[in-house]
């Protein structure tokens, strides 16, 4: 007999209709796509990162397609939190989908400012702190690359809001587990893993970088294996912390990889661009996958990864 499948997911106290969200920067706030995608079928939307003041962003080209992925260098262009609250606030209140607001800043104080403002929007169910951005108080060092700075942001943001707070980490670090532990100790209720990986592409005819910003963030299936590894390592170290797995999710099977690695939910980024219904279809596919395996909730997949029982082998970098 087929098990009854429920996709309802509890992520750090946030109730989601499905475990498949739209990743920050790839779905707007949902407003642009609302006419085409039935948002009630989307597990949740993480909005594009918003900062205290408007940011103009990088010169073009801002995008370069690469094998099984793309590079982007947007530079966090956004209208600033005031305009966000005014324009997107009313939409979020009635969107019929859980909305997590992604916030960013150049200092701990800036994160705090935005957190306070967006917490007032009714309908916002959580905050994601995008700490993969430069910290002007530390010569532009990315917060997420420094466990101390990362923890500073999270301890401040969690004090400024009643909402659950997720920390979005970058995999461009020596030890992602160390950063994860630091932000969780500082109060983060969950983790979003991972942001784009720093990359570069060159136009060999023009002898020029293909991005206006020279380097940019790599996304898409090209980064999935790195993302799955990060989720796995962090969930092994912090088994009780809910994780959103992000990076190259394009179909139900790639989403299940993350759930098996230890994620509670996944977020779809680049796939939204070529398949605006990806979040909806992947959730449906996960349901079918669970039914076929005789399972009833996505939670059943967590911790079901079968790894060799012998003590873990040392890791070799490069063969």
């Amino acid at each position, binding site marked *: 007999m087929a098990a009854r499948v429920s996709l309802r997911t509890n992520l750090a106290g946030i109730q989601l209709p499905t475990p498949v969200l739209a990743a920050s920067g790839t779905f707007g706030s949902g407003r*642009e796509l609302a006419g085409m995608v039935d948002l009630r079928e989307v597990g949740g939307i993480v909005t*594009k990162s918003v900062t205290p003041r408007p940011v*103009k962003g990088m010169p*073009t080209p801002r995008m370069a397609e690469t094998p099984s992925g*793309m590079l982007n260098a*947007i530079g966090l*262009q956004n209208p600033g939190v005031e305009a966000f609250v005014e324009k997107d606030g009313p939409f979020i209140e009635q969107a019929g989908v859980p909305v997590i607001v992604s916030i960013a800043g150049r200092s701990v104080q800036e994160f705090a400012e935005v957190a306070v403002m967006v917490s007032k929007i009714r309908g916002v169910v959580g905050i994601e702190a995008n700490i993969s951005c430069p910290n002007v108080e530390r010569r532009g060092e990315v917060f997420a690359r420094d466990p101390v700075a990362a923890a500073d942001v999270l301890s401040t943001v969690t004090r400024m809001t009643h909402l659950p707070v997720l920390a979005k980490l970058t995999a461009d670090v020596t030890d992602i587990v160390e950063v994860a532990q630091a932000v969780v100790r500082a109060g983060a209720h969950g983790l979003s893993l991972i942001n784009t990986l720093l990359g570069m592409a060159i136009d060999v005819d023009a002898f020029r970088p293909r991005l206006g910003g020279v380097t940019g963030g790599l996304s898409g299936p090209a980064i999935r294996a790195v993302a799955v590894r990060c989720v796995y390592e962090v969930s092994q170290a912090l088994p009780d912390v809910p994780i959103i797995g992000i990076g190259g999710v394009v179909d139900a099977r790639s989403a299940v990889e993350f759930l098996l690695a230890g994620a509670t939910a996944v977020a779809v980024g680049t796939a*939204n*661009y*070529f398949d605006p219904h990806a979040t909806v279809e992947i959730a449906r596919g996960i349901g079918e996958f669970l039914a076929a395996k005789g399972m009833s909730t996505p939670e059943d997949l967590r911790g079901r990864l079968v790894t060799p029982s012998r003590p873990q082998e040392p890791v070799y970098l490069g063969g």
Partner: protein
Amino acid sequence: MNRQKCEVLSAKRWGVYHSITLVAPEIAEEARPGQFVQVAMPPGRDFLLRRPFSIHQASRTGGWAGTLEIAFTAVGPGTEWLTTVEAHDSLDVVGPLGRPFPLPRAPTNCLLIGGGYGAAPLYFLGQDLRAKGSRVDMIVGAKTQERVFKPVEAKRLSVSVSTTTEDGSLGERGNVTDVLPGMMARCESKVVYACGPNGMLRAVAEYCSEQGIPSQVAVEELMACGMGVCWTCVVPVVHRDGRGWSYERSCYEGPVFSGARVWWEKWLGGRSTPVQTPPEGFRLEEMTAEGVGTWPPG
């Protein structure tokens, strides 16, 4: 904005151009000249993103009602693959996307300028303009004769047509901007519409600003989504009130912009030809604040 699985009604080829006609009633119904569609690439390849194409024709009424045509040249893996598409195949298409060409409120003399495949949306535009009583003249330019887009149809649509090729193989040798002043004077053009390479649009827009004639140009930037959510496709545009500028999405606020409001120098680099008057309401301080020197440049 709709997403449709569309049957290919026909796939044709003329010269370097390919065209695909699709059964896409929902998209065709809403489509306006200057808008575009995003065509999905086949799964299982290492290129993932949709490819944008101007709507060449959309039939809302008559025997071909509900069909949509795109025209393109093969330049890379995505367009190469599209050349292999045949009748009865199915394409996943999102559209219509972007801001269309605004039409004049009252009938007037319109000059349409197309470069290469950029001429594709102008035939659809020309039909709408004529149906509303405007006079249509055209300049169609390309590198070589075989790249001149539908010169015969241009003649059928317009009162007068000027053709240019860079090698002189058809029409006048040179670019569209060489014949622009003459055409504009002869046709007493009151509005200019243009689509083609960004450098051409810049030259057209700058000449129009100099002459005080409004221009509407359909630009091209690299697009990841085409639906307004990724912010990769931006163009620097001066605000309507002249106070400052911002990067606007060419897939959402564009691809059609007022040529006078695009900040060409910032976008494409180089130096703009000096214009007598800054774009309407443009404040000098905004330009100098960005460290690009004085306005007008030069």
